[in-house]
């Protein structure tokens, strides 16, 4: 058995700047206005976030199909998360566990994986909590809070 020499990669981080496309650009602009938007297909399926093909009937979706969601939804399932990954492959324990839930937004058929603040129960109704000063980014959505 020949032994081996272990070596580390030279320091380099590959940076990506991914083009979002027109639909997602409009979606992020609507976040700035504290609005959640989705696309409602003629077949009835509402896909969130917006994209060019309906997941159910594959029809072409455009800005005409745009609908605004209420920001309310229901928890399908949730979990208490105790760790994070640091991007380099290491587990990092969280100071205190955060709640992650798969949420079905009202009027939308897609699942939204989002953080939940407060103690959720299964099937609990939730509502989006916006960052004070939104910038049109994913982090404008702080979390979802339990409504009742």
């Amino acid at each position, binding site marked *: 058995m020949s032994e081996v020499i272990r070596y580390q990669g030279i320091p380099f981080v590959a940076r*990506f700047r991914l083009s979002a496309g027109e639909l997602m650009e409009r979606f992020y602009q609507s976040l700035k206005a504290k609005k959640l938007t989705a696309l409602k297909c003629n077949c009835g399926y509402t*896909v969130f976030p917006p994209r060019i093909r309906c997941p159910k009937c594959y029809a072409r979706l455009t800005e005409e199909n745009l609908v605004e969601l209420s920001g309310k939804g229901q928890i399908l399932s949730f979990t208490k998360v105790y760790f994070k990954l640091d991007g380099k492959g290491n587990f990092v324990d969280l100071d205190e566990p955060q709640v*992650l839930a*798969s949420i079905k937004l009202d009027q939308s058929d897609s699942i939204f*994986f989002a953080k939940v603040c407060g103690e959720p129960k299964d099937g609990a109704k939730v509502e989006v909590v916006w960052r004070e000063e939104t910038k049109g980014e*994913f982090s404008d959505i702080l979390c979802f809070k339990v409504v009742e």
Partner: protein
Amino acid sequence: MRVAIIGYSQTKFEYDVEMTREEMVFKTAKDAIESAGLTREDIGTVISASTDFLDGRTISNCMLIGATGAYLKDETKAEEDGMYAVLYACQRILAGIHDVALVVAHTHSWIFNPHQVSVYMLDPLFDRQNDLLNDITLAALQAKAYMKRSNATEDDLALVSVKNLKNASNNPYALRKMPDATIEDVLNSKIYADPIRELMVAPPCDGAAAVVVASEDFAKKYCENPVWIEGIGNSCDAYLRDRDLSRLVSLEIASRKAYDMAGISDPYREIDVFEVTERFSHQELMIHEGLGICGDGRGANFIRMGITEFYGDCPVNPSGGALSGDAICATGLVRLIEVAKQIVGEAENQIDGVQRGLAHAQWGLCAQKNLVFILGGDYEA
């Protein structure tokens, strides 16, 4: 026209193995060819299986041409589980262009944590920006969704780990073995995201596996004990956001196709052993339902009543499954090999009288893709 497995080899699953990936692949390929009683010259086509993100090398097969025995061979690389490479090898043989194919799959998880690679499988424009999301936390949401729809409890999840880690103690190739594992051991292991704890997650490791498949004529001429591939079913579900996480729809589709091809109407009775890829313990219960061997939402009954023990009516993962060691691209291929070993009578935890077995591989977050193989011995059906 049928295809048969006529040779195989697997390495001991370890973490940070004292071997380069090139040497491990070379040894595995060479052993598989020898186990088929052939030499490299007999091989027509070579299909390797590894991914660029896991190996840390774009074109992860280009510097392994020598190691996989693919020098001046009709070669390609499947960028997913090695069982998909066997499916492609069968297609190359059934197309009548090749007679003998070598499939070699490997992953060295020491190179870069596969759980970190799972983050790059998320949609970068949306989900990837939620830094809580990775394969483990998504699996936790899947487990909770399944437990809500079925009668499964956390104890049932722990029982799956207990069964597989006990089975693994007889398996020399397994990484993680716990001969006297208990539910408490599993429920006390480090929590990642409830209900998922460390002993409920398949531990990524370094490993490789290889098989030689051949056409019906070649196998009959040169192999005393071929293992016939009688059915194959493959299906891929939608992306996470537009999919029912509480069930494995693509497995339901894939297993039906495999059963139809193999002429199986009642899998529970007609299949003697199951080797499934359970990356998380709750998935083994979901897989029972996806394979249609138990009622909808009744997956937990099997584990509670010991039906899936290797001495039970419906043995699942006598080898210890993925929970005993997960070399990502090699894990599904190892399941195929374990079923072949059961059929030729060379398996650890050997079940007697195995004529037909089922091997299953999954790929993607929350088992988005599922592939099912039905293998049969040389009995006169």
